[in-house]
């Protein structure tokens, strides 16, 4: 059946927009409007996917793909252009499309140099990320995976803050270095599978049939996971993140925190775990340990930060640590909790970065020591900041609470002690979040900062209000979203069923 290639359109529409931006390169305002138009059109297309896949009782069917688009690509290698959509991809591309629009809106006033180039990279980036969330051919996936790095390098390096070059190069070398190792593993897997079946292919579902002997599987899993864990980032591979987040322009931070980190966690559960179930089981304790350690360590470091953007960057590591614990435990509840938490973290952390970007435009400083007493001068901004910080620390009724509870309950049913430790780790979140609020919003205004800070404008309210609504909605009524994620997660579970077993297998 030949139908309209909707997923392909969604992925490549931003790229077409990028070409348009190049054509309009001398008209800044034209670039902005074109970009926002393309992003909005993309969002509409993503929304139409919801409508197309509505069945009785919800969106999507358990364990089934909603849509697959498959074209011939490089026949000599056995690589095909395959995009597939399930609930996880659907929710993540929705998040990507939404944050894409916000990224343009928040840069409306703050990006004034090389406007066309900025939007060009933003759009190319969007194509890369959407491709990562949809492709199920490993070579295609790798292509998109790398394609998101270079635009980010430019976004940080050209439009970033003082130490932007250092941060940009560090980011690029970490991520590309990791993915080059993954490329070796990917090729080894491809050859291994080709030798076994006589059919050389990069298709995920064929490669999942590969049987391994000896420690090969461990090595391959390690290489894949290394690349993904750098993006997440897992503790010990995280050192690029505080620099990149802090030095990036607001739009860059939003995309980094909101989307790029998610690609790492997504790839882990879409590729690394299903491809190498036994090795994943073997490494589960390690992943859990690193995830838990990340919660504590990053929380502790965040508490000591003086730069508010850096503080939130570290809090990202802590949040992602919990998500990884949920993924690594691999039961239905923790997995859907992790997926929901990816969305939650994307929303709240992006909102916080946006708010800090707005503050930075007014205050020209991100140091906590330059703030204080903001509640008095800019009440609307402060209210939003308070709201999103409370959401981020897991206040019941707001979105993060739901995700965290699901993860912890899911983990508790399998590994009670892990859940207990993880729960203790969350106390750190409360500690540094309240510390941040205390330093910035309350107290007396510091003498050295400008006293008359203008409050939020209409455009800025338009950016924040939808995020606010989403946070409340996910907090009070997560059911529909959770259903979509659970349907998809149960599909993942059937593929990687052996992961659910508790004891790690013995490896020679």
């Amino acid at each position, binding site marked *: 059946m030949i139908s309209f290639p909707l997923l392909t359109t969604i992925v490549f529409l931003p790229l077409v927009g990028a070409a348009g931006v190049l054509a309009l390169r001398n008209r800044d305002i034209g670039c902005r409007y074109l970009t926002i138009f393309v992003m909005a059109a993309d969002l509409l297309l993503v929304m139409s996917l919801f409508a197309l896949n509505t069945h009785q009782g919800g969106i999507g069917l358990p364990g089934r793909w909603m849509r697959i688009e498959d074209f011939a*690509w*490089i*026949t*000599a*290698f056995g690589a095909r252009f395959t995009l597939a959509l399930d609930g996880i991809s659907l929710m993540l591309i929705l998040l990507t499309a939404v944050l894409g629009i916000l990224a343009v809106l928040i840069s409306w006033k703050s990006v004034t*140099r*090389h406007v066309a180039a900025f939007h060009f990279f933003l759009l190319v980036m969007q194509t890369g990320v959407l491709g990562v969330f949809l492709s199920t051919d490993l*070579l295609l996936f*790798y*292509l998109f995976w*790398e*394609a998101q*790095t*270079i635009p980010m*390098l*430019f976004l940080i*390096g*050209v439009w970033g803050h003082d130490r*932007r*070059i250092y941060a*940009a*190069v560090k980011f*690029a*070398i970490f991520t*590309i*270095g990791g993915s*080059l*190792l993954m*490329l*070796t593993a990917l*090729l*080894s897997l*491809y*050859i291994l599978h080709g030798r076994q079946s006589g059919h050389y292919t990069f298709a995920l579902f064929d490669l999942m049939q590969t049987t391994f002997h000896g420690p090969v599987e461990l090595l391959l899993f390690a290489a894949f996971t290394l690349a993904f864990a750098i993006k997440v980032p897992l503790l010990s591979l995280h050192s690029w993140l505080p620099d990149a987040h802090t030095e990036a322009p607001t739009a860059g931070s939003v995309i980094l925190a909101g989307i790029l980190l998610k690609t790492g966690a997504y790839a882990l559960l879409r590729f690394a775990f299903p491809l190498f179930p036994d090795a994943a089981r073997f490494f589960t304790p390690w992943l859990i340990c690193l995830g838990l350690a990340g919660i504590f360590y990053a929380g502790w470091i965040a508490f000591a930060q003086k730069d508010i953007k850096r503080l939130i960057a570290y809090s990202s590591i802590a949040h992602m640590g919990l998500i990884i614990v949920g993924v690594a435990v691999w039961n239905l509840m923790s997995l859907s909790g992790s997926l929901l938490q990816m969305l939650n973290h994307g929303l709240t952390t992006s909102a916080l970065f946006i708010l800090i970007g707005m503050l930075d435009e007014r205050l020209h400083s991100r140091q906590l020591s330059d703030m204080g007493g903001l509640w008095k001068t800019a009440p609307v901004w402060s209210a939003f900041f308070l709201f999103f910080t409370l959401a981020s620390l897991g206040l019941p009724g707001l979105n993060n609470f739901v995700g965290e509870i699901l993860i912890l309950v899911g983990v508790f049913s399998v590994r009670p002690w892990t859940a207990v430790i993880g729960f203790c780790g969350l106390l750190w979140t409360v500690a540094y979040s309240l510390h941040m609020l205390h330093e910035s919003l309350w107290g007396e205004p510091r003498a050295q900062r400008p006293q008359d800070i203008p409050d939020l404008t209409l455009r800025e309210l338009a950016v924040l209000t939808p995020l606010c609504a989403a946070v409340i909605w996910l907090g009070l009524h997560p059911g529909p979203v959770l259903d979509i994620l659970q349907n998809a997660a149960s599909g993942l579970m059937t593929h990687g069923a052996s992961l659910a077993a508790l004891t790690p297998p013995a490896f020679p």
Partner: protein
Amino acid sequence: MTLLSWKPILFQLMLTGGAVFIFGVGAAAKRSSKNLLFILTIITLISAALMALFIHGESPTFSGMLDTGSYARCFDVLFAVTALLSLLFSHRHAGLQSVAGDEFYGLVICAVLGMSLIAGAVHWLIFFLGFELLSLAFYVLIAACQNDSGYEAALKYMVMGMVSSGFLLFGIAMLYSATGSLQLAASLGASVPSGQSAGSPAALLALALILTAAGFKVSLAPFHLWTPDVYQGAPAPVTAFLTTGSKAAVFAGLLRILLLTSGWLWAHCTPVLWMLAAVTMFAGNIAALTQTRMKRLLAYSAVAQMGYAAMGLMAAKSDGGLSVIFYLSAYALMDLGAFGVIATCSASADADTDALDQFQGFGYSHPWQGAMLTICLLSLAGLPPTAGFMGKFFIFRDVLKAHYTGLAILGIIAAILSLYIYLKVIVTLYMRPGAESGPAIPVEIRDGGFGTAARWAFAVIAFGVLWLGLFPSFWLTVIARMTVS
């Protein structure tokens, strides 16, 4: 011998005729305009390339000397295109600097002829002839600007070229004495007399000598030390031609030699190639890390790229060297682009714009050239969606398939190292603090100012790099049909 029997070597005849004609025109018309010679050269190259594309002989070889099959013809086209693109870059350059007139254009054609002889040789004499013709042409071309740095570079290249020719000649002589044949296939395949398990040590030594000679020409470490000096001294368009055309030619010859070697020789060859490839990748990339001049940086990067191609040779026995050929074509495009940008932004008559600092803010002052350079650098770094990625991907696939996992991992580590080199340049182009204060390269030569010819070349290269990177299928099917006779 009828006239028609010359048909298979029309490519070579065309080039010879063209070169002689251009020398003639240059000598006859004392003040002949360079434009006329330029156009004549372009016409010669294009028509020769068309010959190679469409005319093929019935027999696989021409009098047992020259391959006229698809392998040689495909490379002939590649060489002609390389020369053509380099010429397009040199058009403005030749007007600016005191480049000699007729001999420049004539010698470019001679060099292409030499390349086609190396790639097509099935007889050692032809191989040596091509090797010498190529070298002689480049000795002069490198000094084409008639300045001190050019002379120095030419002299260096000449000394190295003489040494490598000596190695090659000695190797051929040994091989002849060991096997009694000057045919490539017969001499390399016959090194093991039937019924014996070990071949003659003389043949082995001969192959080592030939490998050394080729190693000099394609600058495999440890024979690569001339590369940065020569590249720096030579005018940028010549460097572009030297680094792509001559290396592709010698690799084409090398690939044929290795494919024809008997199993016994090959078994002794692989450890040497393994070492050469590994050392070259690291030597090139590590040396490039600290360079502050563009041409030297690109020279070392070119050395490292040859290491990857050499790695592909390891797997050549199993797949016929497809990955090497694909990689060479990708490499030719991206290195031509990179050196081409340098060629087009050199304004003064003395030397090319070369210092990395001069390129600060280049991406903003010269957007098209900057974008071109960036694409080529990303391709050299092996990042998708460029030809360089597909080339490396193909090489790594074949090397892993051939069970050289260790070498592949070394290659990946070298590639991670090399990231910093290319990022360093990209950072300079777009992100350095002084990037907006004003370009060091005059703005006159921005965008349209660098000449229509070069703009065409850039368009072709940019298209090629992205096309090979995203849709390599077509080119893969073309080279998959090539067979070595």
